[in-house]
């Protein structure tokens, strides 16, 4: 596997140096691995902090900026960040109005953010947490780690970020973030495994002519493997899996998300099929976003996320945002 890197050990630090050079509107602390919007702390504003393993770019660092995250804490590739990073980020962005941690539901992320919340509270920072767990491919039971956080993370960060930018309270921003998560469901498929720099070879074997249904965003295999399907069949399977788990009464936001190695040409074609299924099922679409937003290194494949929105959530979705990865209305 050929990768555009120097050595695996410096992949994250190298990317952060590059981000710093490309985005002077962000403060990038390469050594301590914290990305902060340059104007933080913003007086009276609730701060949003997220983070997680690297390898999902532009999530989370690419979503730092006005209207979205105040700070992001990137871990090693596919490894959650350490508590020290979130504590440092919280100290840098807290204006006194409190901090909301947005945490994808993975054992490591939950443990490290919990430890960080305790430490930040010891320093007098008010911390609230919201867990993102939107992946319907995982059985949510006492006998698993629970549903994974995937594409809905973008919706939570954008919509809660807009609410925070308007000056809403920590309690309110937390409630909105929670509501967005509860209104969201995702399903992903992989057409190839991904390769982590440390391992240098694919994380699982996916024979030619097969695909993995219900895959996560860490190269972890999914629930079921089948013979390769068409874009139309994958859209049917994915959207039906989501609608088995939610019955939207309001219009939905649609995210057709690339896993990293699937061209936009294919993603737009896939989106056409997704929209067809939604129309067939009588689901109204309010907005659609197509692109690579919550990726899994060089994995080929896509995920679909639906988020049911009322007028208020839609207004917050449409509000201006200015980040490296998402930008409109400014």
């Amino acid at each position, binding site marked *: 596997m050929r990768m555009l890197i120097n050595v*695996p050990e410096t992949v994250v630090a190298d990317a952060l140096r590059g981000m710093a050079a490309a985005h002077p509107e962000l403060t990038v602390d390469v050594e301590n691995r914290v990305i902060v919007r340059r104007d933080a702390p913003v007086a009276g504003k609730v701060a949003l902090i997220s983070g997680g*393993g690297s390898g999902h770019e532009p999530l989370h660092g690419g979503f730092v900026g006005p209207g979205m995250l105040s700070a992001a804490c990137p*871990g*090693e*590739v*596919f*490894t*959650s*960040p*350490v*508590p*020290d990073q979130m504590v440092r980020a919280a100290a840098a962005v807290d204006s006194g109005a409190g901090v909301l941690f947005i945490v994808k539901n*993975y*054992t*490591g992320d939950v*443990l*490290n953010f919990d*430890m960080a919340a305790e430490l930040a509270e010891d320093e007098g920072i008010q911390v609230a947490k919201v867990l993102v767990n939107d992946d319907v*491919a*995982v*059985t949510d039971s006492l*006998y*698993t*780690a629970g549903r*994974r956080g995937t594409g809905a993370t973008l919706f939570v960060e954008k919509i809660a970020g807009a609410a925070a930018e308007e000056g809403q309270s920590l309690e309110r921003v937390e409630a909105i973030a929670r509501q967005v998560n509860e209104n969201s469901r995702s399903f992903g498929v992989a057409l190839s495994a991904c390769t*982590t720099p*440390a*391992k240098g070879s694919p*994380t*699982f074997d996916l024979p030619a002519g097969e695909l993995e249904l219900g895959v*996560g965003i*860490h*190269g*972890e*295999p999914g*629930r079921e493997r089948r013979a390769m399907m068409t874009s139309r069949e994958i859209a049917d399977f994915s959207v039906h899996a989501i609608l088995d788990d939610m019955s939207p009464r309001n219009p939905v936001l649609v995210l057709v998300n690339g896993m990293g190695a699937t061209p936009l040409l294919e993603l737009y074609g896939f989106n056409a099929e997704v929209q067809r299924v939604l129309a067939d099922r009588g689901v109204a679409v309010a907005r659609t976003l197509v692109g690579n937003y919550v990726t899994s290194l060089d994995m080929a494949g896509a995920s679909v996320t639906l988020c049911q929105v009322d007028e208020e959530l839609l207004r917050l979705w449409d509000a201006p945002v200015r980040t490296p990865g998402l930008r409109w209305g400014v």
Partner: protein
Amino acid sequence: MLDADFFRRWMAATAASVDREAERLTALDSPIGDADHGSNLQRGFTEVATTLEKEAPDTPGAVLTLAGRRLISTVGGASGPLYGTLLRRTGKALGDAGEVSAEQLAEALRAGVEAVMTLGGAAPGDKTMIDTLVPAVDALGTGFAAARTAAEQGALATTPLQARKGRASYLGERSIGHQDPGATSAALLIAALAEAAGE
């Protein structure tokens, strides 16, 4: 009696063993995880070894508490907080005595394992590091070599289990047939303990 030097040897032996076995741990983590267990622990225990050499804490409790704190600050993932808590709580339970007995260590380690179970929510049989640590601590009363054997058997016994915690649990039945990487690295930690004791 076991002094601070013994505990520093234990941590150094663990670092060396994790270093040797990093690729195997990562390979075990590929089919049922995300292929980073070896490299993450390698980074953490290398840092632990360096810090212990530099700061040379002089009681058994201080050695393990410092080692645990360094793991929490450098590893990330689930294994950082879990291994960090194991060592930190074991260290705390040892107090500030200059030397401890093997029985005191066994008792402290039990407190550490219980703290890991509380933090991670895993019980024996969930296909995690707990499946190695619980039998190892039970066997420690008989001696270090017995603990090592119990740990190795515990790790091997995770192969037929279905994972109920951590990332492998997403696979459901497909996690069956793979040895758990966390249970495997926990066996390295216990084997290093026996090595430090010269057994």
